[in-house]
């Protein structure tokens, strides 16, 4: 077997694969944040909690109702999305006329409440979610072993990201959304229901978080804190990619996952901070982010 810079290929590809998995979560989560920020101008700090809700949703479906993973993939994201719609209608909506900071504070507070609630009832030790049979095996690709569960996460995230990109960039609904992001007043003056569009967009962004949560359930333990840990990194990803850029979020998410994986191979000590270092560098050179429009 050949070696790269003294690194066995099994290790290298293993870490790259891990990086891609993390990148999948970064991409789906930062995509949701970007969509929400674009139209609502709110940094949705509840996003991590909503990701956690997705994982718990899958866990509850399985343990309380006996509904399995493959159903959960389709059922849970819309349910989490609806909880987002309720939040938007009842609370977030009231803050649009105020400074962005208030939206940030509200969603941050909501996250604390939701996570606290789950901690109270489920503890912090983490609940196991058995992977469905289809996801237990794997393939030997020769240079590495590819577990099905991992392959599925990457493929499912890619599909969801591309579908989201397609809806936003190529459909009429997406044109409404892009236009309302630029000039909501004018879009309203065309007779389009912008408040409804805003609500649905928030619900959609939140559903993306819920979807990521379902994907995470069989891979990571289902834990009230799972979102809080991840979301900090995702915010860094969003800052690097540029707030509000759809394709930027997707590419940056996967790209940074890979970079993180490579760092783990070549300089393991740096893997926890590499994304933040990149963030600092990008902010110095291009404050609007790699794909962001400067405001």
């Amino acid at each position, binding site marked *: 077997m050949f070696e790269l810079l003294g690194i066995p290929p099994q290790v290298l590809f293993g870490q790259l694969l891990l990086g891609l998995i993390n990148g999948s979560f970064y991409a789906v989560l930062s995509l949701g944040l970007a969509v929400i920020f674009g139209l609502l101008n709110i940094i949705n700090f509840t996003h991590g909690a909503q990701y956690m809700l997705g994982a718990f949703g899958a866990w509850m479906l399985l343990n309380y109702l006996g509904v399995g993973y493959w159903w959960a993939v389709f059922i849970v994201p819309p349910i989490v999305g609806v909880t987002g719609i309720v939040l938007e209608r009842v609370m977030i909506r009231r803050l649009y006329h105020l400074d962005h900071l208030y939206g940030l504070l509200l969603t941050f507070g909501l996250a604390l409440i939701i996570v606290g609630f789950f901690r109270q009832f489920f503890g912090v030790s983490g609940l196991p979610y058995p992977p469905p049979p289809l996801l237990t095996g794997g393939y030997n690709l020769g240079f590495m072993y590819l577990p099905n569960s991992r392959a599925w996460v990457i493929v499912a995230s890619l599909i969801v990201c591309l579908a989201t990109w397609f809806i936003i960039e190529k459909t009429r609904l997406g044109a409404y959304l892009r236009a309302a992001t630029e000039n909501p007043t004018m879009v*309203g003056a065309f007779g*389009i229901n912008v408040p409804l569009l805003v609500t649905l967009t928030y619900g959609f962004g939140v559903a993306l978080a819920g979807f990521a949560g379902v994907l995470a359930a069989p891979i990571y333990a289902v834990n009230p804190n799972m979102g809080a840990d991840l979301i900090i990194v995702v915010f860094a990803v969003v800052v690097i990619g540029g707030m509000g850029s759809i394709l930027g979020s997707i590419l940056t998410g996967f790209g940074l996952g890979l970079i993180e994986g490579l760092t783990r191979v070549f300089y393991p000590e740096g893997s926890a901070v590499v994304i933040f270092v990149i963030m600092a560098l990008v902010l110095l050179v291009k404050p609007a982010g790699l794909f962001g429009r400067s405001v």
Partner: protein
Amino acid sequence: MLRFPKIRALSKPISGPAMSEVELASRPAAGPSARPLLRVDGLQGWYGESHVLHGVSFEVGEGEVVTLLGRNGAGKTTTLKAVMGILSRRSGSVTYDGRETIKLPSRLIAQMGIAYCPEERAIFSSLSVEENLMLPPQVRPGGLTVEQIFELFPNLKERLSSQGTKLSGGEQQMLAIGRILRTGAKLLLLDEPTEGLAPVIVQQIGRTIARLKDEGFTIVLVEQNFHFAALVADRHYVVEQGRVIDTIPNRELDANIDKLHAYLGV
């Protein structure tokens, strides 16, 4: 004074048979006596705390073209915004087709059949020309087809896949007007459509407005250039400090030219 060349006959009439010259000539001059499609009465408007409109009143009959003339800062744009419902605070009365709209959100006002082409054109940079053109949803039957819009503005057809804001200023103006012709709106609010455009484009816009009038559109046109306004309008309202201070029928324009110069400070 600029003149528009005679309106080119289109191969296909835009709606119904085209009017003959005789019919055009014998049509009664529209005046305030035509059924008012839009009636603005004592309209007040604010930007935050600053009170900008102090009781604007005017009427537009169905099928008429009227202009709002006035100096910079007189309140013309604000009046159109208030009629469209996008001024955050307004009071008084705006009736469209007999229905009071002063309490309605802009979305519902648009759906009644009023469309707005803003001074800054508001072409969306994240949308292609085609997406910009197709963005406003159809609110009523009877709008122009896309083909008819291309007949009015052939430039647009060449540039459909360009980014909206990559168009020239004149083309952006054509797009901003063109996109509201599709929707079936009967009343068009056009804010300075000729601002900053080359004379040949100004002429094209002028011909277009005259065409739209022939098609039965009702138009409120904000203009600084009353030589342009004189060629298309039935009546002129002079706006000053948030009020309409005078009304001049177009046929009496020549007699009032000195007064108008004084109003506009030209």
